[in-house]
């Protein structure tokens, strides 16, 4: 894409052109030519939305909860962006993005933008592109961004580093899982949601969770995670409950961040993370570009395979040649 087209694209996006928003996201997601330029131009317009992360195991009812939260935020007059992340198949690279099905009610609402993306094999759940996508939707201009990711283990829930408020969703019957990761949950969850709270075992589970929170060694003045019950999978409207309290808690947590000045700390953390990720990928990109066509990559790998060299020494050598050397030159 030509640079002036990129300018045009970003201008339209900032003007609220929804189709351009969608196309810009694709360009960045695929690392197409011009994506750095897009991000440079978009960046000054970011930082205004409240970001809510929702994570939890498959079948926990995250999408249905997201659907209800969207409706509630809309009722409050807020515009909402939603990023739904589903895992890519490690074997084929394909992905089934089926969460949108649960959000049909908002299909015609111009105040809601929903985008399904595949994790594309990134360890740790969210790829750098995901952060970029969140930034782009922020720049497009929504009040709230909900990011839904599949979290099955501690290393897959790094949305916590990016969101203002992080919801971890459980259901009764996940008792064993939670036992294994109790400590981890308290570190990442601002709100612990006990979904399907009408099922057997929910009360006991909630009691255990609350006990864990009380017993945890939370420093004074820090946020104490809340445990909230929720029912959002009943067909009967009257049975669906708990989401107003979740919204209240989200705002309460947001207010706490303001008051305790943790918001600045979060911003700092987030930038640290982004900077690291961008540096990582750009550096790798740069180096592999340099190696391209030299046959060196193959030579290095064969040397390691043959036992004549080791990965650490190889990386050092590459850095010396392509980074440190360049700097000298």
């Amino acid at each position, binding site marked *: 894409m030509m640079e002036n087209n990129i300018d045009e694209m970003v201008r339209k996006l900032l003007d609220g052109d*929804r*189709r351009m928003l*969608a*196309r810009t*996201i*694709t360009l960045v997601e*695929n*690392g*197409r*030519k011009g*994506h750095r330029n897009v991000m440079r131009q978009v960046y000054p317009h970011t930082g205004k939305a409240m970001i809510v992360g929702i994570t939890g195991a498959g079948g926990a009812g995250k999408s249905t909860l997201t659907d209800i939260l969207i409706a509630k935020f809309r009722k409050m007059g807020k515009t909402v962006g939603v990023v739904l992340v589903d895992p*890519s*198949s490690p074997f*084929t*690279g*394909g*992905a*089934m*993005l*089926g969460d*949108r*099905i649960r959000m*049909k009610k908002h*299909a*015609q609402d111009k105040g809601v*933008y*929903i*985008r*399904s*993306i*595949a994790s*594309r094999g990134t360890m740790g759940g969210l790829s*750098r592109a995901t952060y970029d996508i969140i930034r782009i939707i922020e720049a497009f201009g929504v009040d709230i961004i909900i990011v839904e990711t599949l979290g099955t283990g501690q290393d897959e829930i790094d949305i916590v580093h990016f969101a203002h408020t992080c919801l971890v969703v459980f259901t009764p019957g996940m008792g064993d899982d939670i036992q294994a990761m109790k400590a981890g949950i308290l570190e990442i969850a601002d709100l612990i949601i006990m979904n399907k709270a009408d099922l057997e075992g929910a009360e006991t589970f909630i009691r255990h969770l609350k006990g864990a929170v009380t017993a945890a060694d939370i420093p004074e003045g820090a946020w104490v995670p809340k445990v909230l019950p929720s029912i959002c999978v009943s067909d009967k409207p009257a049975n669906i409950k708990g989401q107003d309290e979740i919204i209240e808690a989200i705002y309460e947590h947001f207010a706490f961040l303001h008051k305790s000045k943790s918001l600045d700390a979060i911003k700092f953390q987030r930038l640290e993370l982004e900077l690291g990720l961008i540096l990582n*990928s*750009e550096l*790798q*990109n740069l180096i592999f570009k340099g190696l391209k066509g030299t046959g060196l990559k193959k030579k290095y790998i064969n040397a390691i395979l043959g036992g004549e060299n080791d990965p650490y020494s190889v990386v050092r050598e590459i850095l010396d040649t392509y980074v440190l050397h360049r700097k000298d030159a």
Partner: protein
Amino acid sequence: MENDKKIKVVITKVGLDGHDRGAKIVVSLLKEAGMEVVYLGMFNQVEDIVQAVVDEDADVLGLSYLSGEQLIFTPKIVEEMKKNELDDVLLIVGGTIPVEDIPLLEEMGVERVFRAGSLSSEFVEYIEKNIKK
């Protein structure tokens, strides 16, 4: 960071047609072929489907018909796609479609019709070769 562009497909049922088994199988087979597939399920209105294609910036829209509504809904979808300038989206149709309807659908703007009994090798290859973006 150039990475491989993945083909993004939206698969959907239209209107009240409740036969979704075939559509779901197609979703799974496209996923296995390395594509990223957004499945919209049943009970979708024309405008909702096209809005999803816009928001997801899909390369392909696949409509599944098993109850004989293809000649009713397809022109409405094509019109809505035009309104949204989606001329670079590959529109395909699958399901129980009489051969007599194939030229009619093609005239409306459908690029290819896959009847029941089509194998995934056929439609995967077709999509890979014909996406317009």
